[in-house]
């Protein structure tokens, strides 16, 4: 047991939490930006998967990790635009469109993998590039903090910066206000001349970019190659976190963090002899209890205010 304690109560554990949370955060932010504008994107999982493979392929074709990332982002945008176009122009239910895209993505990535590598498993045989790891100059030398904060993949830092930017975008800017208005009541938004369709298209592009970065992180940072279905439901965690937040960005991020922390703990506990099937449910149980506690609290608050 001692050895597990050492694993958890150490700076490197916090480092790991960040690493584990990055793709989840991207997924949550992707779900959040889309839903905020009133067009739910439940294709986060699919977009991440497509972007993960396209990033790798892009880096192979262009011999550059950064161009690969661009290819990943472009593919994410394309997927998001398909969803937006079908929902806005063809008036397809976005839920349906999202499920269809997920089905499509998990098959298409395997198909692509097969066509390009001749195997349906991984791109490990391709000379793909990874995005660089960053050691932050001064911070890296600060004892504990440096160990935790420094030395992550560049996308991890982009993720943190994006989180701040999304916060500012949503709560401080004009466009953010329009996003919220479009999501809360599109007729009201239209009545004051907000171009709801344009807001939604833009939000979906943003959502696509975020999901794509989450996918690219998996295959170009976390790992250095793509493997089939490597997203392993991370996109769905993002969707759940978004739903938990009900429009509140901080709650969305906190929920994601809860999942990430418990996931990291589970990874340590998996070295013990506890039944692995039960262990794997821990992060889900954490979020499950979190939302129940949260809703009971909200309920009591409402009761108090109403009486």
């Amino acid at each position: 047991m001692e050895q597990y304690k050492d694993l958890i109560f150490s700076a490197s554990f916090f480092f790991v939490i960040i690493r584990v949370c990055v793709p989840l955060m991207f997924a949550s932010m992707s779900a959040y930006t889309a839903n905020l504008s009133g067009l739910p994107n439940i294709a986060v999982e699919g977009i991440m998967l497509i972007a993960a493979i396209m990033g790798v392929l892009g880096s192979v074709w262009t011999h550059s990790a950064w161009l690969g990332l661009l290819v990943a982002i472009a593919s994410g945008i394309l997927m998001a635009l398909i969803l937006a176009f079908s929902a806005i122009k063809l008036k397809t239910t976005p839920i349906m469109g999202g499920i269809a895209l997920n089905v499509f993505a998990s098959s298409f990535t395997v198909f692509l993998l097969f066509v390009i590598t001749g195997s349906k498993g991984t791109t490990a045989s391709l000379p793909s590039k990874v995005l660089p790891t960053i050691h932050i100059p001064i911070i890296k030398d600060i004892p504990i903090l440096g160990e935790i904060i420094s030395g992550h993949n560049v996308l991890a830092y982009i993720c943190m910066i994006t989180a701040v930017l999304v916060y500012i975008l949503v709560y401080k800017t004009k466009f953010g206000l329009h996003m919220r208005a479009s999501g809360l009541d599109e007729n009201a938004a239209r009545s004051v001349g907000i171009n709801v369709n344009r807001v939604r298209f833009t939000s979906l592009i943003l959502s696509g970019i975020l999901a794509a970065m989450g996918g690219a992180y998996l295959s170009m940072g976390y790992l250095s190659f793509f493997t089939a279905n490597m997203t392993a439901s991370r996109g769905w965690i993002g969707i759940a976190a978004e739903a938990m937040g009900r429009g509140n960005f901080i709650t969305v991020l906190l929920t994601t963090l809860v999942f990430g922390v418990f996931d990291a703990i589970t990874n340590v506990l998996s070295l013990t002899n506890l039944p692995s099937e039960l262990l794997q449910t821990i992060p889900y149980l954490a979020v499950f209890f979190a939302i129940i506690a949260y809703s009971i609290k909200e309920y009591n608050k409402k009761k108090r205010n109403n009486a």
Partner: protein
Amino acid sequence: MDDIILSLQEITKVYDNGVFANRKVSIDFKKGEIHSVVGENGAGKSTIMKIAFGMEKQSEGQIVYKGKPVQFENSMEAIKLGIGMVHQHFMLIPSFTVAQSIVLGNEPVKNKFFVDYNQATKKATELAKKYNFEIDVKAKIETLSVGAKQKVEILKTLYQDAEVIILDEPTAVLTPQETDALFIELKKFRELGHTVIFISHKLNEVKQISDRITIMKNGESCGTYNACDISIEKMTELIVGRELSTSFEDIKKKLDNTKAVLAVENLEIKTTKKHTLNNINFTVKSGEILGIAGVQGNGQSELIQAIAGMRSFTSGSIHLNDVDISTIPIKQRRQKGLAYIPEDRMQDGIAANASISDNIISTYYDSPEISGKVFMKNKSIRTIADNLISKFSVKTTSAKTKIGSLSGGNIQKVVVAREYQTDPQLLIAEQPTRGIDIGSANFIHNQLIDLRNEGRAILLVSADLTEVMDLSDKLIVMYDGEIVAYFESTNDVTDKDLGLYMLGVKKQSEEEIRRAYRV
């Protein structure tokens, strides 16, 4: 001054469901005029205005603005060209503040991208002051009364600095004072050379403020008149096709053996911040209509919601026919004979995407005529629905039509018909004729009187003072969560006096008020 700013030419609109809302409607609006559009419910007034505002697209026809043909893809384009609109149904976001709602779409910005919320608050406050609307710009929309929401809607449009503003029934929920204030502003607006398009069912208002009046019927225009050339009676006749009597005194029966149906005792609602309702005591007897007068937002809505079971309260009791209903669920209250015409029909009163017949039975769907233990009796439902539709002259092709596609007035008729159908002991009528055309309003008023004459109790709340004064037997006035006056008869008070009570300038003595609670 005679140039035409906005010209609608041969506009035809057919909705997805095949309804022709407008057929070849042509109307010219001049620069610097107040132009009213009147007509019965479903005549197509809102539709033609939505088209002029770019929210709906015409199927055929043309819009000419300032001499140039325009084709609006969305309302933003209309707003850019200087057209603003206040909609018949609210277009407000509950979780936004008043200031946010007012500036939305054209926010003051700093550094190009960021909303300057301080500036927004300032601007909204100034605007409200300028138009004499008393409103807390930092309050959230969801906490506002319907009247206050209406004011926000109007401010929204005024904020956009439009040259043409369209007001779709803005006065339906305003008090006479507020309406007067609005009219003063509209006239100022006209002085500036702007154009006001005004839709209302209150023909005296229309007559009072308009320069010209267009009358619509069945989706077509029946001509535009100079306001001075047409009398209210003539308008009524053109719209309704007959004359209406407006005095109810002679048809009210005097009833004996009345008893208290509703008794509200010491009712109190305290929220975290303040008293919303304080020490409310009154009764409503069988065979009488008790009117509640008051400026919106003085506790009427909360009072009604507490009685109807839509919200809880802090202390006190509510009895219906001597049974304490203070804490029982809505369903049981209804079974004990309570009916309720809600203030906000779109939010509470209907399921917009369900059919008329589904909507017309919702509050008594488990009564034995309509359903057995498990199954609904679809045949009887059809019969009831068809009867009610024809009795209340709801304008629709069939009972299967989605209620949301009806015009506002017709939706209201369905709500009234439904509550009427439950044959209630106590009917709470909150803004019962809001947005209803004069013919139908007259009909609903007659229904209310009939109900009263049958010995039912009616609690009437309306922002339309004329309505309250005409219909009520007795009257209470509310101000700041309290009853400030009680009148045994509406003849005991003049309009002017009533206004003073409503604004909190005058208040009766405890004893006088206490008379409202008569055991």
